[in-house]
């Protein structure tokens, strides 16, 4: 399978934040959800992918091309949505379109109008009077009107009401039906991903934890619950992180099969949510840092 985005051994540090030897890839033709807590490097990664930041070292390649020699070519083929409004506020959507349209060779007015109609966007109202949802729809309309192969979105669902979030996800789903599109988007509303993500890329503190097919996560990871007396130095090593209480323990394992073999019927294994995985991974990493410093 072909990679549409590849970051190889990327290092980037600024303002006390660091991406270290960061390597990720995104597969062409799929939806990849990009998850991680606040301030772990999601936006930085997206900015590196968009060439808004340049890596200190390492390589970034999009469509197999590098930014140094093919910047405009790459950006012609990307549609982008950011979590903040990046459109001018004192112009109408129609004027904004006229500003952006000449930048793209493949701009399609018919497609633009189709989305404007679909989202019920006013063409002659100043963008500053748009609601948060409408601004998001406007950005999305612009991102989708030039037949981009790759759609990159930074927290597109944050601050949106549940109904529009659902609509957005349905729209993305539709987009994936017809053709060779790839969607890469970051979110911390992990339930959004249940509906559409094929792959999950998880990062924590500037470090790539995993990229996996969604269904495989359920096969590999499990929440384990049992009596505290099951835990000892050896069994504790099976887990990414453990939470103990008076009633027993709850822990996350990244090797479900092995855990099943070790504990048998003594412990209960449950399907983890992405949030469980994020939470326990964070705890596991913090503890690891503690015990090694």
């Amino acid at each position, binding site marked *: 399978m072909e990679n549409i985005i590849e970051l190889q051994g990327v290092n980037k540090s600024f303002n006390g934040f660091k991406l270290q030897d960061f390597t990720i890839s995104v597969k062409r033709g799929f939806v990849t959800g990009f998850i991680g807590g606040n301030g772990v490097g999601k936006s930085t990664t997206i900015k590196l992918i*968009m060439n808004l930041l340049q890596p200190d070292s390492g390589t970034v390649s999009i469509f197999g091309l590098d930014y140094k020699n093919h910047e405009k070519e790459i*950006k012609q083929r*990307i549609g982008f949505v*950011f979590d903040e409004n*990046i459109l001018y506020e004192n112009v109408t959507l129609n*004027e904004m379109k006229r*500003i952006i349209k*000449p*930048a793209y060779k493949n701009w399609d007015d018919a497609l633009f109008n189709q989305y404007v109609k679909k989202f019920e966007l006013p063409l002659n109202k100043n963008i500053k009077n748009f609601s948060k949802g409408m601004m998001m729809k406007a950005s999305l309309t612009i991102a989708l009107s030039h037949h981009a192969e790759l759609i990159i979105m930074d927290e597109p669902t944050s601050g949106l009401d549940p109904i529009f979030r659902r609509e957005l996800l349905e729209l993305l789903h539709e987009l994936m039906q017809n053709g060779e599109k790839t969607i890469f988007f970051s979110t911390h509303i992990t339930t959004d991903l249940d509906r559409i993500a094929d792959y999950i890329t998880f990062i924590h503190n500037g470090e790539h934890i995993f990229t996996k097919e969604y269904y495989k996560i359920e096969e590999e990871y499990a929440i384990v619950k049992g009596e505290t007396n099951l835990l000892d130095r050896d069994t504790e090593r099976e887990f990414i992180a453990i939470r103990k209480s008076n009633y027993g323990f709850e822990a996350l394992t990244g090797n479900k099969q092995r855990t099943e073999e070790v504990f048998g019927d003594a412990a209960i294994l449950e399907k983890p949510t992405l949030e469980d995985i994020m939470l326990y991974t964070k705890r596991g990493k913090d503890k690891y840092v503690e015990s090694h410093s």
Partner: protein
Amino acid sequence: MLNLIRKDIALQKKTLIILLLPLFAYLFFGSSTIWIGVLFCIAIIMQGFSMDEKSSSNLLFNSLPYTRKEIVSSKYVGACVFTFLVLATIFMGNLIIHKEMIQLEQLLFTMSIVMLFISFAFPFSYLLNSQYLMIAFAVLFVLYFIIVNMFIPNLNDRIRELVQTALSFDNSLLYLIVVVSVLLIYIVSWMLSIRIYSKKVF
């Protein structure tokens, strides 16, 4: 890059039309054309510049298929376009109101001052922010007044004299030297701005 310049003009269309009125008023009352030209050029150019200073517009234009070089260059070329527009308007206005042509030297002189200003203001604003430029100018203005009041009471007259002498030089070689050196400064500033802007983090 032409798209970006066209965008700046489109966005400032309203401001430009509104500014026509005071421009003609100034001309009508016979203020110095050099002074009006410099003032209007700088005001319009810096307004266009500050519009795109917000990090959101930087995000937008850097994500569109433009390079940082093109974004900076569009501002430098755009500044020349705006200067041309303003000077052409003043020229026409003067022709209509006073039925007289403005000397080429006066136009060149105005252009040189505007370009010198931009050569300083753009890299400064890319490095910090055009708001600091206002502060810097407020400080300079105060300093200027202190100097005028305390040391050289006739500074204004001296400057006026200097400008008059410069304009009355009948030496085209001298003009050529001035214009070429202003152009050189402008180009150096342009390159410097590209360097500063390409290292910027949004």
